[in-house]
C-alpha cells in the first residue's frame, strides 16, 4: 500500500507542478466565495480530463479504481498548493460515497461523475434550526404522496434545513427527512437525493462571521421528490448519515491538515525571527505533527479494517485545536494583520482566522466529542 501510494504521490506532484500555471487561481486574493467555487470547478474539470479525479473511485461510478487514499492524496496536494479551498473540495468525500453506498446503481453511475468532473455541485441537508448536535431530533418531514409508503411514486417534503454549505450553488442535495413518528429519533429518518431546482425549494444564504455566504437556510414547501431518489431504506436514513463519518474523519481531515501546514508555512515566510515567534510557531507545528500522525494512523486503520468509529472523535478534537492553533499563531505574530490590515493579505488572513473559530463547532462540537470519548472510549458509563 505505502509503495503504491508513494509512487502515485510522486507522479501526481510532478503533474501538478508541470501544470501549476493552468491550475493556479485566476482571481486576486482573497477572492470571493464565487471565485473559490468557480476555481474549484475549473480545477476539477482539468483534473477529470486528465484522469486524476477518477483515481480511487469505483469503476461502477466512472472511476478508475484503486484505494480511496488516492483521492485523499489528490485533495491534500491541491490544498497544499492553494489550488482549491480544502473545505469546499473535500465535500466530495461526504457526498459521493453516500450515493455509491445507498443510491440505486444507475443513479449513482449517472450522478457521481457530474460531481467529480465539476459539472455539478451538491450540498448536504442535515442540520436544522432545532437539530444541531442532536441530529436525531430533526423534523423536516417527508410523507408518501397518497399515503402509502410502499406504492407512492413521490414523496412530499416540508420543513427547513440550516448550515447547508454551498446550497445556493448546488444542483442536488442529500437530504435527511423525518418519515417516522415525531419522536422516532434515529429510527424514523429517511434520506433523499433531491434536485435543487424542484419547485418549492427556497435557498436563503446566511452571512458568516467572515462576510462570506458559504452556507444557507433551505426551505422546503410541498417539494415532490420521486420515490426512486430515496437513498437507502425507508427509515434507514440514520445509517446514511453515519456512513459519512469515516470519510469525513479520514480523507477530509487529511486534506484540512495539508491546508494547515501550508498556512503555517505562509506564516513563517513573513513572521519575525525571534524567540517569541519561535515558541508560537513551534507550538503550532508540534500540535500539527501530533494531529498528522494521528490522522495517518486512522487512515491506515480504515484501509486495513474497513471501519473506524468513535475513536475518530480524538481526531476531531485534534484537528479543531490544530486549526485554531495555526490561526492564533497568525494573530499573535502578525500584529494588526487580522485586526486592521485592509490589504489583500489582511483580508485573506482575517477571513481565514474568523473561519477557524468555527472549527470547534462544526462537524460535532468539541464538547460533544469529549462526551463521546468519555462514554465510548474511556467507558465511564452514562453521565445521567
Amino acid at each position, binding site marked *: 500500500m505505502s509503495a503504491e501510494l508513494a509512487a502515485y504521490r510522486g507522479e501526481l506532484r510532478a503533474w501538478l507542478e508541470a501544470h501549476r500555471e493552468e491550475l493556479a487561481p485566476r482571481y486576486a486574493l482573497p477572492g470571493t466565495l464565487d471565485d473559490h467555487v468557480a476555481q474549484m470547478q475549473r480545477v476539477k474539470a482539468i483534473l477529470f480530463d486528465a484522469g486524476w479525479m477518477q483515481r480511487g473511485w469505483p469503476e461502477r461510478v466512472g472511476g478508475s479504481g484503486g484505494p480511496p487514499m488516492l483521492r485523499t*492524496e489528490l485533495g491534500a496536494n491541491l490544498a497544499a498548493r492553494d489550488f482549491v479551498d480544502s473545505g469546499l473540495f473535500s465535500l466530495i468525500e461526504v457526498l459521493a460515497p453516500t450515493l455509491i453506498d445507498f443510491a440505486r446503481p444507475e443513479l449513482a453511475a449517472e450522478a457521481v461523475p457530474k460531481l467529480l468532473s465539476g459539472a455539478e455541485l451538491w450540498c448536504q441537508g442535515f442540520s436544522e434550526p432545532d437539530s444541531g448536535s442532536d441530529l436525531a431530533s430533526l423534523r423536516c418531514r417527508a410523507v408518501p404522496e397518497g399515503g402509502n409508503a410502499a406504492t407512492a411514486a413521490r414523496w412530499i417534503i416540508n420543513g427547513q434545513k440550516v448550515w447547508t454549505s454551498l446550497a445556493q450553488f448546488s444542483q442536488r442535495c442529500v437530504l435527511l427527512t423525518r418519515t417516522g413518528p415525531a419522536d422516532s429519533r434515529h429510527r424514523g429518518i429517511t434520506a433523499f437525493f433531491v434536485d435543487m431546482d424542484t419547485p418549492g425549494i427556497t435557498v436563503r444564504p446566511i452571512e458568516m462571521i467572515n462576510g462570506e455566504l458559504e452556507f444557507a437556510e433551505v426551505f422546503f414547501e410541498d417539494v415532490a421528490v420521486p420515490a426512486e431518489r430515496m437513498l437507502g431504506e425507508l427509515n434507514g436514513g440514520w445509517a446514511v448519515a453515519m456512513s459519512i463519518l469515516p470519510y469525513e474523519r479520514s480523507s477530509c481531515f487529511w486534506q484540512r491538515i495539508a491546508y494547515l501546514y501550508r498556512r503555517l508555512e505562509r506564516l513563517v515566510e513573513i513572521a519575525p525571527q525571534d524567540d517569541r515567534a*519561535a515558541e508560537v510557531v513551534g507550538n503550532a507545528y508540534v500540535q500539527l*505533527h*501530533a494531529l*498528522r*500522525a494521528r490522522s*495517518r494512523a486512522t487512515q491506515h486503520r480504515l484501509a486495513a479494517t474497513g471501519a473506524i468509529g468513535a475513536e475518530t472523535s480524538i481526531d476531531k478534537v485534534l484537528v479543531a485545536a490544530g486549526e485554531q492553533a495555526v490561526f492564533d499563531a497568525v494573530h499573535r505574530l502578525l500584529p494588526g494583520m487580522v485586526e486592521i490590515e485592509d490589504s489583500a493579505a489582511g483580508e485573506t488572513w482575517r477571513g481565514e482566522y474568523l473561519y477557524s473559530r468555527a472549527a470547534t463547532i462544526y462537524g460535532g462540537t468539541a464538547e460533544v466529542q*469529549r462526551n463521546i470519548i468519555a462514554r465510548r*472510549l474511556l467507558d465511564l458509563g452514562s453521565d445521567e
Partner: protein
Amino acid sequence: MITANERAAMTESVGAAIADAVARSANVDATLAELGWRELLADDPDAAVEIVFTALGSANATASALDDVLAATLGFELGADLAILLPNFASWAPPGRIDGSHSHAHGIATCRAATAAEILVACDNESALNTSMVSVAAAEVTVVRGVDPDAGLHFVRCPIETKGGRPLDPAAWQSALALGRRAVAYQIAGACRTVLNLARTHALDRMQFGRPIARFQAVRHKLAEVLVAVESLDAALAAAGDTPSPETAALAKAIAGRTAYTTAKHCQQVLAGIGFTTEHQFHRYLKRILAFEGLFGSADAITHDIGHRLLAERRVPTLIEL
C-alpha cells in the same frame, strides 16, 4: 525483526515481568537481562525500545536500559559494565567538551553509574565529535536526590583525555539521540497510560453527591482531554518508528512532554485529595515524569528549537506521508 505476533506476546510478557520485578522490589536490570533485552535490542531496536520502555514507564520501574540504547546506536558493545553519560538535564548537546587545555564533561547518568566500570562520553571538540571512555573511578559521581530519589539518576563530572578518543560520526550521534528520545517518550507514554487508568478507576469508584464523580461532565472532559493527548503521543511514536529521522524523534519527545503535563495536571485534579498524598501511587508517576521529561531536551526546549528552525528555513515540512 520480530513478527507482529511475537511483538504482541512480548509486550505482554515483558510488561508482566517488569511489573512483577517492581512489585518484588527486585533489580529490574537483572530482569531485563533474563528477558533477553540486549539480544532483542540488537535484533530489532524499534520493537525492543517500544516494548521495554513502555513497560518501564507503565510500572514506574528504575532501570538503565537507556545506556544500552545509546551504546548500541553509537556502535559499542553492550554490557552492564558500560554506562553512558547523557546530556545535561534539558539539553541534548554532547556532554563532553574539549576546547584546548580545558577538557571536561558533565551530564546525567542512569542507575548504571553506581555499578559500571566505565562511562562512555560523547564529546564536542569544536570541529568534530568523538567519544572517550572514562573510568568511573576517575569521575565524580553523585546521586541525584531531586524530586524523585528513586529514579536512579546521577550527576557525573569527569575530566576528558584529549587524546585517544574515537571519532564520532555526527549522524551516529543524531541517531543515538533520536532513539534515546523515542525511548524516553515511550517511557512517558507508558506512565501516562497508567496514570490515566488510575484516575479513571478513581473517578468510577469515588462517590460524592450520591454518585460516582465519573458522572460529572467536568471530570469526564478532563479525562477525555488526557486520552486525546495520550493517543496523539502513541501516534507520534508510531510515526517516528515508520519514518525515522531526528525530526520525527524530536517531535515525538516534545509531544511526550506535553502529554505528560496534560496527563499529570488533569489526572491529579481528578484524583484530588488522595492524589496529593503518598498513599496513592500517583505521586511516584508525577515525580518520575518530572525527572525524565527533561532528558534529551524538554518539550519546551525542543519546541523552541524547532520553531527557530522553521523560521530560519521559512519552510514547514510535513515529515510524514500517508
